[in-house]
């Protein structure tokens, strides 16, 4: 065979961790590694031990069995390692499985191993795999660091250079290029890129990327068709379900979105984040039996996962209250402190949910006491309360008779998220539960109108050529509504329009970038972001 200049990789100095619950197999793997001249070999007999060791030491190579018996699975070891930053792109993670990989579902791309290896395998195969992966990692390194630095244009240049050389890992580089285009919000470019790949074969990840581009561009019908197609061809590509559900939510069909996610949890029951989301969605759809199952699954699976959160417990507790079992709900809440002793928002989560349970039990004094505790915790956290928690707090106020306090908090939430349909749906649920559906609708529509006219006034200033006034106007509005993406986007826009006329300044650019960053953080698929960031890049390149 034609030999090309392949980088020679020295394995002898690598640090290796072997994870398998069978002593015999650990021994076999150790022998294999030793015969490759590797000196530094650790092993772990279960997922928990593996996670501890990975946190304590940087391993170059991790060979991990998928099925580790009770406790964390191999997949959870990988997820936790990546989530906590202990496993990064230069580490090699090989997932060892007892059966063909087709048996396994395809999860989120960022939590996939470098390779799957089916037992049994000869040591020659293992060595070849490791060497191949190590060689591939070398050329990807530059792309990964550029992505980590948010320098997407540079990442794309490196991708193109590499692709021109047809390296062995062409597929991986193409995958990365697609991701960078999506990250950069160049959805049209991404769509064209994926289309070109799809002309040559039905590659699953390219179809997925194509659908995501459509979702981001607001082409929901076409996105839906693509995701449904992917599932019809291979019902184990799990991200397709998640994106399909997101598309259906955008299409205002939460019931169908719920059905899709229910099918997904049937096929892949071990997916904490999906259970969590399904629980919330089903609660909103008033399907409390499904919500209960999902939150229960989330709580159960959270015991082995880095993705667990107090919301899994409070969600379950609140669902149990709806199921007329508040007593059980309190029992669930009793476990939260033990599970999350170090989080500073644990008390707030628990106290709010407790007040709901006591309220349902007609224990007014206890409910009030819980609310007072929640109030104190909220004051300690100041501005760092996630919006969903803030909404729950508002509802707790309303239940205790504090309609005005509750409504004020909700008004604040709506003004920040006046076009976030999922958030508004949650707001509607709260008012419905308070038997105030009409008042809720009223609050949403007046607040929405206020924000729209507030925004339009600024836009009118800008259109009338009064850019300086528009800047003052929008920057003031953005200070009041730091979480409203349209206000922030427009603040950036008018700043940049002004600089286009008068020339860019460092201060102006920094302020514009600040608003753009907010927009991206609030909604990474914000439709005008791509246009604005391109404008920003053009302006800043003029400065240099």
């Amino acid at each position, binding site marked *: *065979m*034609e030999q*090309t200049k392949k980088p020679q990789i020295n394995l002898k100095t690598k640090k290796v961790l072997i994870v398998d619950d*069978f002593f*015999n*197999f650990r021994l*076999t793997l150790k*022998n294999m590694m030793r*015969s490759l001249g590797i000196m530094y070999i650790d092993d772990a007999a279960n997922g928990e031990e593996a996670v501890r060791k990975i946190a304590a030491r940087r391993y170059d190579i991790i060979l991990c069995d998928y099925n580790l018996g009770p406790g964390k699975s191999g997949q959870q070891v990988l997820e936790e390692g990546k989530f906590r930053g202990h496993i990064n792109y230069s580490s090699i993670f090989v997932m060892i499985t*007892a*059966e*063909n*990989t*087709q*048996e396994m579902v*395809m999860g989120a791309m960022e939590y996939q191993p470098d390779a799957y290896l*089916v*037992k*049994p*395998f*000869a*040591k*020659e*195969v293992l*060595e*070849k*795999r490791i060497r*191949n992966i190590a060689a591939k990692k070398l050329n990807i390194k530059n792309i990964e660091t550029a992505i980590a630095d948010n320098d997407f244009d540079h990442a794309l240049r490196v991708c193109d250079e590499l692709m021109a050389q*047809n390296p*062995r*890992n*062409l*597929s991986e580089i*193409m995958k990365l290029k697609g991701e960078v285009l999506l990250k950069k919000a160049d959805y049209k470019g991404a769509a064209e890129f994926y289309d070109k790949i799809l002309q*040559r*074969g*039905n*590659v*699953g*990840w390219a179809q997925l990327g194509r659908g995501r581009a459509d979702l981001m561009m607001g082409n929901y019908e076409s996105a839906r068709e693509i995701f449904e197609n992917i599932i019809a*061809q*291979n*019902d*184990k590509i799990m991200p397709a379900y998640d994106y399909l559900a997101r598309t259906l939510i955008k299409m205002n069909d939460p019931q169908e979105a719920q059905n899709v996610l229910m099918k997904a949890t049937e096929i892949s029951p071990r997916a904490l984040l999906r259970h969590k989301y399904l629980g919330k969605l089903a609660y909103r759809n008033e399907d409390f039996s499904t919500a209960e199952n999902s939150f229960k699954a989330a709580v159960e699976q959270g015991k082995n996962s880095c993705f667990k959160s107090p919301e899994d417990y409070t969600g379950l507790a609140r669902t149990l209250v709806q199921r007329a079992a508040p007593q059980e709900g309190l029992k669930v809440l009793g476990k939260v402190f033990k599970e999350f002793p170090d989080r500073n928002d644990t008390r707030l989560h628990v106290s709010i949910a407790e007040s709901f349970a006591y309220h349902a039990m007609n224990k007014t004094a206890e409910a009030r006491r819980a609310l007072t505790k929640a109030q104190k915790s909220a004051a300690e956290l100041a501005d760092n309360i996630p919006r969903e928690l803030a909404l729950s707090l508002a509802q707790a106020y309303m239940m205790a008779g504090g309609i005005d306090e509750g409504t004020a908090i909700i008004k604040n939430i709506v003004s920040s998220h006046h076009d976030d349909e999922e958030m508004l749906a949650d707001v509607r649920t709260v008012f419905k539960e308070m038997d105030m559906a009409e008042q809720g609708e009223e609050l949403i529509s007046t607040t929405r109108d206020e924000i729209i006219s507030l925004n339009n006034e600024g836009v009118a200033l800008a259109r009338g050529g009064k850019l300086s006034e528009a800047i003052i106007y929008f920057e003031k509005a953005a200070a009041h509504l730091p979480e409203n993406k349209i206000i922030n986007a427009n603040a950036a826009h008018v700043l940049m329009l002004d600089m286009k006329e008068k020339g860019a300044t460092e201060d102006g650019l920094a302020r514009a970038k600040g608003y753009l960053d907010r927009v991206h953080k609030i909604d990474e698929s914000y439709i005008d972001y791509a246009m604005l960031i391109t404008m920003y890049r053009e302006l800043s390149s003029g400065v240099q």
Partner: protein
Amino acid sequence: MMKQTISFTDILAMTLHDTKNSLGILFNNLEDIIAGCRAENCARHSDFYTLQYEIQRLNHSLIRLLSLYKAEKSQLAVNIDYHAASDLLEEAGASHEVLLASRNITLLTQCEEDLFWAFDRSLIEGVVDNVINNAFRYAKTAVKISATQENEYFVLKIEDDGAGYPPGMLINVEKQPGIKQEIDFQTGSTGLGLYFSMMVADMHTNRDKKGFISIVNGGSLGGGVFSIYLP
């Protein structure tokens, strides 16, 4: 309460999984023993290779059977991605070289370094493993795996210098797409292997084209030639 709906085929599949796990342990233990024997220069260490060959054959049969079982239950999904042909061949080489060498058979691989194609790697590996395992029995001195692009197809060819396939086993000698041939299951496991290969070829589609296989005699080594064509 136990669910009473479990079918015999499910029981069979579970037993297959279990058997496969045992085989895995057997395979690796044997590899350790062989390594030990080789280190001690034990004269009969090569006898173990025959054992290992049979274990591997069993293992491949089980994988094939499980795949067919899943296909029957419509659970077998294709997972198409771009792969470098050289990667596929190198790894096939690595997993069979030692065994073939124990019978003094040389394994040759041939492909362009920049040949890429979209296919399901584990399914295609299953096909290649099966064919090479057969060639192990019939080849005299050499087995050759090659990958090329012919027209709009990716062609994976496995040739040997044995006596060739019996006339009844030749399939699609004209190498035409779209031809379906009945398989003679009298040939036992070979028939099952062919059935599997055809199914895998059939599962690979691109636009309006489907994959297919061909079995002829002759080729560059003068023996059997198995080819799988993927669109």
